[in-house]
């Protein structure tokens, strides 16, 4: 079981961009910078904890209102900058605890803020920007929907500290009326329930699992290797459709998402009948 530390985002952002600053006018919880990646100038984005953030429920690495609108702003800025130029890759470095759970957030419509960030990422993808999510730590629920899940390609480390899930374990156990131990046991046979990234890889949603000995302290050699994987994923994204069809057309999806494939085939067939 991995505990959220919130340090990995900064580590990898710094490794790729050589610095760890927000852009002017942005909150400290959103790191954004352009940096060379292969022959491209890529835009890197990352959410990090900020103990002094304006919103009290978004101080520990959650994606809150300010984080979501800042991501939306910086992604849309990249789209605008490249309107008549090569579409720069957009790299979402993902280590998010969750969305922010607060009354202020609900009152000021965090659902729309989160949608705005996803809108920006999705719009960038449809405009031809290769959008790559690199999951270096946690990617939980609304946090991941806001930051990363609209990417053309998702890469993740095959590490115990990496966790992609719909809800953190204790809450999921409580709501489905199970113990954490029961949930862990079920996860061994039912892949979508598992909190293990290796089981997540069986769902067919991932482009690739990468290995780094200690993702909190990567070596220069490892950083270079991960950069090369990003470059390869960018090239792959550029050569294929801009939609998310790759997620259900992978070899793993043919095994695990049989029901999805069946539903789509039947719907397509019946759609055309008159």
């Amino acid at each position, binding site marked *: 079981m991995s505990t959220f530390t919130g340090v990995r985002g900064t580590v990898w952002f710094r490794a790729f961009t050589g610095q760890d600053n927000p852009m002017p006018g942005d909150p400290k919880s959103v790191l954004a910078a352009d940096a060379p990646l292969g022959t491209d100038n890529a835009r890197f984005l990352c959410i990090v904890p900020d103990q002094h953030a*304006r919103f009290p*429920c978004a101080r520990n690495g959650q994606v809150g209102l*300010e984080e979501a609108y*800042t991501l*939306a*702003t910086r992604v*849309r800025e990249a789209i605008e900058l490249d309107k008549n130029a090569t579409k720069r890759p957009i790299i979402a470095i993902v280590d998010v605890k969750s*969305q922010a*759970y*607060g*009354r*202020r*957030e*609900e*009152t*000021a*419509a*965090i*659902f*729309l803020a*989160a*949608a*705005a960030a*996803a*809108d920006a990422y*999705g*719009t960038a993808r*449809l405009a031809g920007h290769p959008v790559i999510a690199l999951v270096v730590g946690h990617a939980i*629920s*609304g946090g991941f*929907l806001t930051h990363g*899940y609209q990417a053309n390609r998702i890469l993740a480390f095959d590490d115990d500290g990496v966790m992609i*899930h*719909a*809800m953190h374990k204790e*809450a*999921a156990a409580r*709501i*489905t009326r199970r113990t954490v131990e029961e949930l862990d046991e*079920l996860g061994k046979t*039912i*892949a*979508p*329930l*598992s909190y293990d990234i290796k089981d*997540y890889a069986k*769902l067919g*949603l991932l482009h690739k699992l990468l290995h780094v000995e200690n993702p909190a302290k990567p070596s220069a050699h490892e950083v270079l290797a991960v950069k090369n994987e990003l470059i390869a994923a960018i090239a792959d994204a550029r050569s294929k459709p801009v*939609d*998310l069809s790759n997620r259900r057309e992978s070899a793993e999806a043919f095994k695990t998402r*049989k*029901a*999805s494939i069946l*539903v*789509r085939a*039947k*719907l*397509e067939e*019946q*759609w055309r009948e008159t």
Partner: protein
Amino acid sequence: MITSRDKTTFLNRQSFLELDARGRAAALFDQGTSRELVGPFDRVESPWLAIQDVTPQEDDGCVVMKGKIAGKAAVVVALEGAFQGGSMGEVSGEKMTAALDLACADSENGQPTSAVILLETGGVRLQEANLGLAAVAEVMASILTLRKHAPVICVTAGTVGCFGGMSLAAGLSSYIVLTREARLGLNGPEVIEQENGIDEWDSSNRALVFAINGGEQRYAMGLADALVEDDTPQIADAVRGFIAKGLPHVHRSSQVELYRSRIGALDTSRQWDPNELRRAWGTSASEEDKR
């Protein structure tokens, strides 16, 4: 105050809330034009529920219908709030995504096809966890693609409301139609209380939920495009109106500068009276249209 005319209207209304997902979907189409796709007789169930001792349903709680609304091609996808809380699983999610993609393909081939999504859902189905979350992300991606060509209209009437990841799908829609019985928000009250304590949100306080997440408040804040009575003809009228109107000048979820500046102007040292935000934000949609 209910006037005598209002009282008659109230008594004569045809409740939409009392309809199931299939009844709701059918009620929106021009008469005699709709047919259901991948219905219960196709028996495409969730493969993940029975192995967890949960009884599956033969439509997985998601109804897809194709036909005409206001004389134009349309697809309606309705989530059944009475089955597993309207939660998104692999099958229900793929039904919605594939329906949106087919509407998009037809639109690109010269047959503009709008989509109406009836969202009564608590979000991801936790028995399908990561496939549910992935389904939500894919629904969102397909809404973004379709809404370049034809409007996507979200209707949340109640009683489940629209929460969790699917509230982002609502946020991406071209238009949102709500009733006073509807609630729309990312995190439900119980989850907030669990995460941040009863001082943050007392989930037993039902009035608070409606004051913040309720349809009337969302509409008054400019976050929904129509507030309707629980009356089937009125809801169908609102949907027809938006389909006839076509795409909005700008989608709400793309108005980043406007909303970012509004968030920046808030005093975060305290909780707000929801009425304050009505006053501060309430005129948004019309202002934006004038730009």
